[in-house]
């Protein structure tokens, strides 16, 4: 069941913090008449597209004219842009001069075509990055980097860095994600949408139907990790932590992730573990992935997010929003979301994860208390209404 097609700011009153909707409305009044332009590589897929799809109508309804432009290029441009993004996020790539020239030429073409005359132009990610080379003099331009760019591929960074002074500012998700930048750097953490399929309220009937369809029995508690079936997400480490716990507690472990796109080795290993222990349940998510994850998170007793490396890892906030304590590793944005010992635990090792799982399973009242605090933390710090306000605040600050 999908959520309402057209969401208004008023729809968030029931879930946002006290006074937050009025705050956004009043904040918008302070920047009414100014024009905000977002540019991304795509209108679909990914967190930023979902956030813009949701917030654009809201911001426009508040009287702040906001448009969303897409950079368009050939298939070769798209492939080059994907390579550039991987290199920017620290995965070594083969990047040729021809690829960089193609990226630049496509951005020059798009700059001539797109209406980029905002008071604030926000360029998201790496594909449209070079639009700034043809920016108009008027208005302020900010580059929005999503994810960890602290160790970019040197060759790529040397190329991009030449254009950075053309920007007025950069916007990053957390301090450690920032590469060295010669321009002002601002922080805006990403957010979750409590009205999206992933996080909306779900009846117990629907939840049960989804768990049945995913073949997750409901006769005993289960632990959950959400993430790709890759070494980086360390599902084997989570299985090992579960095995420590299983000696004392009759629980299941559910590992849910999308269909692997770069080989099935890790998924095969997880399936092998599941064959040896029927209480280990790997789930390859299908088309209804967001609502299925919603049901899985609501049904879980404790959520584990133990990647070896991560970007902001908003899966943590998604689980916390369902009132679940999360045990997570100290990578990416996970420590920003978990308030250690208050909403969950930040752990460094398999043994640490196992210890905290047993600690919680031995203290059911603590599960409830940490889970409730987790939901309140997300309500105040990681809901889309906060990110919407942050964007308006940045518009106010950069264009004052």
């Amino acid at each position, binding site marked *: 069941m999908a959520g309402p097609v057209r969401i208004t700011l008023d729809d968030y009153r029931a879930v946002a913090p006290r*006074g937050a909707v009025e705050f956004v409305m009043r904040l918008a009044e302070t920047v009414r008449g100014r024009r905000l332009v977002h540019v991304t590589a795509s209108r679909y897929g990914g967190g930023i597209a979902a956030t813009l799809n949701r917030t654009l109508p809201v911001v426009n309804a508040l009287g702040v004219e906001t448009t969303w432009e897409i950079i368009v290029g050939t298939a070769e441009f798209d492939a080059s842009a994907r390579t550039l993004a991987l290199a920017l996020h620290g995965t070594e790539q083969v990047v040729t001069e021809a690829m960089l020239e193609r990226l630049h030429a496509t951005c020059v073409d798009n700059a001539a075509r797109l209406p980029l005359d905002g008071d604030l132009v926000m360029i998201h990610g790496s594909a449209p990055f070079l639009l700034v080379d043809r920016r108009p003099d008027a208005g302020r331009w900010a580059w929005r980097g999503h994810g960890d760019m602290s160790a970019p591929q040197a060759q790529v960074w040397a190329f991009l860095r030449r254009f950075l002074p053309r920007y007025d500012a950069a916007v990053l998700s957390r301090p450690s994600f920032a590469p060295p930048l010669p321009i*002002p750097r601002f922080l805006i953490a990403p957010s979750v949408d409590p009205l999206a399929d992933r996080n909306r309220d779900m009846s117990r009937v629907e939840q049960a139907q989804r768990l049945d369809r995913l073949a997750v029995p409901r006769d005993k508690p289960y632990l959950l990790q959400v993430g790709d079936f890759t070494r980086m997400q360390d599902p084997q480490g989570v299985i090992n932590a579960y095995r420590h716990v299983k000696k004392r507690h009759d629980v299941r472990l559910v590992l849910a992730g999308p269909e692997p796109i770069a080989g099935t080795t890790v998924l095969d290993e997880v399936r092998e573990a599941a064959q040896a222990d029927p209480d280990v349940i790997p789930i390859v998510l299908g088309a209804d992935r967001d609502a299925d994850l919603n049901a899985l998170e609501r049904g879980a007793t404790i959520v584990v997010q133990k990647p070896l490396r991560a970007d902001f890892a908003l899966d943590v906030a998604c689980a916390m929003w369902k009132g679940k304590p999360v045990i997570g590793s100290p990578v990416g944005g996970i420590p920003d979301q978990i308030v250690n010992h*208050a909403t969950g635990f930040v752990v460094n090792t398999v043994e640490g994860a196992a210890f905290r799982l047993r600690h919680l399973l031995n203290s059911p009242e603590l599960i409830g208390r940490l889970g409730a605090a987790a939901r309140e933390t997300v309500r105040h710090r990681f809901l889309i209404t906060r990110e919407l306000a942050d964007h308006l605040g940045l518009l106010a600050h950069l264009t004052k």
Partner: protein
Amino acid sequence: MTPIPFVFHGCLAVQELVGPEAGDARALLEALAHASDETLFTHTAGTMLRRPVQADVYPNDFAMWVATELGDRTLAERLAMVDVFDAGSLDALRANLVAVLEEHLHRGPAAAPVAAEPFVFLRTHVVPVPLGVAARSLREFRDGLAEVHASALFYHVVEARYRLGRDRGDFADWAEHGLGRPDLAARLARIDAHVGSLERLRDRCLTVLDDALGTGS
């Protein structure tokens, strides 16, 4: 006499990374000595705006970082007890933090721990937001305070007292000069904002106001 209305403002913190980075306690000390007032504000009182409901274990970013990244709970506890409101000024606050770090380094082991993730200095640009809520009586003030965005607590109590130089905060000032209630002003000014969250601060203010209205439990 009709009281001067109290107009509620909220605020939004635009966070800017300003550097430098500190990897250990000595580097933190050196950076603190030269950090701007805005940066000091951001990492002490400013943490309340970033964590309006769930106060972290330590009330300022310096103590939090020392505990989590350096694993030095002794230093973290001592930094946590540097009270931004008691200090009286940002210069005094800086001096107190520097004194704690200097004394600790003087007595501490030669091999100081190094953080996996450095301390990164931020600066907060506070964007004031008129909330469209005004109070002309104690009752209206109490009801307004109960409903406004938590950032109003920050703006009128923390920002006003700590950075804008309005010594007792806007609530206490209005209680005295707007309502003519110095007794209430004194009680509001005494509320300890150092340890806790903005929502806890709201609860404490409401308790005092309910008492003044004769509706407290």
